[in-house]
């Protein structure tokens, strides 16, 4: 439906996009006992670290190979080796996920080769999983880095299944980066209600859900374990959420024969009907009463809410999979997508219910949001929303000026119901009360006839 166009500006103004390396780093943070490591100068790490601290309001494990100018010119082997040795001795991780950056990619460091040499030099590190992922920040974006990191973990860790997995209750879930820790908790409940045993890769609900650990931990506080990842081959199905996870799901299928089902979104009534139908059919368990009731509540919320959504014009800026989820849901509620801005190429963009989708920035959003009723984007859209005087609903990463970003739930019947309430309330709070001037025809105002009609 939508035409995808690319901005030809030379200067990006108010970036919407974030980089591949920190997308990959966040994916590694969904694995227990992990230290993600960016191979670049120390700023590459500190910017990402501060961003995640502001979004999740949690301590963030993220290290750097601290490349100097000389090391960059001569090659980063020594820095990578030292970094791994230091991290191993200081934080005792189960996994170190090493992401390249523009610096190491421009130099052309062979990270995969480095790791082979380091393995040979350091047999004492044999128990630590070392996974490299190529994530130059001069191409792609956050969700690409996330997807690639998950694919690399599958390639390096998942073992071929020993037993026939056909009878297993185990199910693999590959969530895209737009699925929050709160979403994962919601999905876990749903899968378990069908007597399924889900393994989420990555699982941010164990690490970045904001809980109080018993002890101080310098690595991630929780998440899926490396051992669990190794056993993903014995699942009966893989569910991938978001087009960005298709590559990872296919890789997993090729390695293990576990078939996959991809849901491009889990926000909205129809999308969740499909999920429930799928889970019921693979598990042989009828849809539990709890979800029948939640569906009914969602239908009621749609009835109550549609008065406020109908005909509203909304400008949305987000990464492709989140953009798809939000625009389809808003469109399903009766809104008009006035403009859609995204960060990177994706097959989902053509399906977006808007005339066109622009690969651009938040300056583009600001220009195209004029006259809209609502702006939907991450916290960096706040300046644009303020200048335009348009209410701003925050989604995605980063959300640094509101509490509870990690617990925002937009999946399932219940998540969709609550989303209708949150966004509907924003529309209601910004309704304009009528005045005697409200219905004066535009041409009268233009010809300055208003004064004649208003008693002095």
């Amino acid at each position: 439906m939508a035409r995808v166009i690319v901005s030809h500006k030379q200067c990006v103004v108010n970036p919407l996009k974030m980089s591949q390396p920190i997308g990959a780093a966040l994916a590694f943070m969904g694995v227990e006992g992990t230290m993600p490591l960016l191979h670049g100068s120390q700023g590459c790490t500190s910017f990402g670290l501060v961003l995640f601290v502001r979004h999740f309001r949690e301590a963030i494990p993220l290290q750097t190979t601290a490349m100097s100018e000389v090391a960059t010119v001569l090659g980063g082997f020594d820095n990578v080796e030292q970094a791994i040795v230091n991290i191993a001795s200081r934080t005792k991780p189960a996994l170190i996920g090493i992401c390249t950056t523009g610096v190491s990619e421009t130099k052309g460091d062979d990270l995969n080769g480095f790791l082979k040499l380091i393995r040979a030099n350091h047999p004492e590190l044999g128990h630590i999983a070392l996974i490299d992922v190529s994530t130059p920040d001069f191409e792609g974006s956050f969700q690409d880095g996330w997807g690639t990191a998950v694919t690399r973990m599958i390639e390096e860790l998942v073992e071929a299944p020993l037993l026939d997995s056909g009878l297993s209750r185990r199910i693999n879930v590959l969530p895209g980066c737009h699925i929050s820790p709160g979403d994962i908790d919601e999905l876990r409940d749903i899968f378990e209600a069908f007597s399924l045993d889900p393994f989420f890769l990555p699982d941010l609900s164990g690490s970045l859900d904001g809980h109080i650990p018993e002890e101080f931990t310098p690595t991630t506080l929780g998440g899926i374990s490396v051992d669990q990842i190794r056993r993903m081959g014995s699942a009966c199905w893989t569910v991938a959420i978001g087009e960005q996870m298709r590559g990872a799901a296919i890789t997993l299928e090729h390695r293990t024969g576990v078939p996959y089902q991809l849901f491009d979104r889990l926000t909205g009534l129809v999308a969740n009907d499909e999920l429930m139908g799928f889970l019921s059919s693979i598990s042989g368990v009828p849809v539990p009463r709890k979800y029948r009731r939640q569906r009914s509540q969602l239908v009621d919320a749609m009835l109550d809410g549609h008065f406020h959504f109908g005909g509203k014009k909304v400008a949305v800026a987000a990464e492709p999979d989140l953009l798809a989820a939000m625009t389809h849901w808003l469109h399903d509620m009766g809104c008009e997508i006035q403009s859609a801005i995204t960060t990177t190429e994706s097959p989902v963009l053509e399906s977006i219910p808007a005339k066109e989708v622009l690969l651009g920035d938040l300056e583009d959003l600001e220009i195209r949001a004029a006259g809209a009723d609502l702006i939907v984007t991450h916290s960096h859209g706040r300046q644009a929303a303020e200048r335009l005087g348009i209410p701003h609903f925050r989604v995605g990463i980063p959300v640094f000026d509101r509490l509870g970003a990690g617990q925002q739930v937009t999946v399932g019947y219940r998540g969709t119901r609550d989303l209708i309430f949150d966004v509907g309330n924003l529309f209601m709070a910004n309704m304009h009360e009528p005045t005697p001037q409200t219905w004066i025809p535009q041409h009268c105002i233009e010809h300055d006839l208003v004064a004649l009609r208003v008693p002095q």
Partner: protein
Amino acid sequence: MSTLSAKVQSLFDEPGCATNQAKPDKDRKKGCNKLLAPGAAAGGCAFDGAKIALQPITDAAHLVHGPINCEGHSWDGRGSKSSGPLLYRTSFTTAITEQDIIFGGEKHLYKAIKEVVEKYNPAAVFVYQTCVPAMIGDDIEAVCKAAAMKLGKPVIPVNVPGFAGSKNLGNKLAGEALLDHVIGTEEPAETTPYDINIIGEYNLSGELWQVKPLLDELGIRILACISGDARYHEVARSHRARAAMMVCSKAMINVARKMEDRYGIPFFEGSFYGIGDMSDALRKISQLLVDRGAPAELLGRTEAVIAREEARAWQRIAPFKERLAGKRVLLFTGGVKSWSVVAALQEAGLVIIGTSTKKSTPDDKERIKELVKDDAHMFDDLKPREMYKMLKEARADIMLSGGRTQFVALKAKMPWLDINQERHHAYAGYEGMVALVSEIDKALSSPIWEQIRRPAPWEFAVDRGELQLHIA
């Protein structure tokens, strides 16, 4: 790159730096840029430091030449406030791609500068060099020069690829960019004997505005603040000031010292943090101005303001004394000088049980020792794990530190107060110290602590009867 490494070397040889002067010749050559340990490093890069130092110039456009990682995550994150223009909060970056890396990014950069000038008409454009374009050899100085000529705007190259060094080095390189391309390029319409520069103050949370009213009252004019709430033209004209105060001493000492060499502007190193320090700062500003020819009556007026403000501040802190007496504080500061805050906290009745001296000079350490006597430990580098242990064992009542260690305290269920650059409260001057004491009191007396430290119901070894009684 040879010019950059020469520049970095010359910064290490800073004669104005006491730490540097105390070193033997051989060590001095090695410079003060600590080698970073891969896998065990924390902190920003040179580009980060330069952006912190220059972005407070509010009417300029700040354009980052690099891939998206450099600017995409960090914009709109720094707390420097403006009394007027808001352009500095708009983010500009070339977001270079693989194409640029293959064919060179200079034309892309030029076109980007042109777009910024045409669309936003800034007072000037600051162009920040980052690692990747430095690696492929983009000559940003040449591009800036050409752009300035063709577009008729100041376009200032800031050569700070992240891998050049630390955030602190970036501060200094930013200062060099101002010295080379901005300061002294314009003349002020008028000067007075009361004109000063404040160097190394970034107006975080509006702290400059806690100090400025007192200067206004004394008739002292801030010709330029470098760079908090600054306008480009103010910085360009700052070489006509009579005296200067250097605030965050390690950040921009090169600017203060070189402005003294080039334009004969005497400076002193001071702080707005702490009541005694604030008074010293006012005293020294007035003295320097009088030394340079301002009427001597300024000194008397200054003393009167100091006496009035000190009395007022102590009077406002007094009510907290009883509530805060004996509470134990762990103090981990970066830029804010430990000893200047220590005095104010002690005056409010708090006991300092430990403080960091990582960024302190030997002189600072001596002053801390004098102030806290034997009650306190000085830590050069306390690992988060040990910090957590201290708090968990309740050897302190509150921790004051930067955002990096925030969750070490909070996860140990201990009160914590942000005193670094991302903080949301302003703690400068007399007003600021009262605010700090009041914030500590708020943090300590929050009703949440008692509740969240209670054991969970399944941790009780209760007899059932008692539990049922509560439910009933």
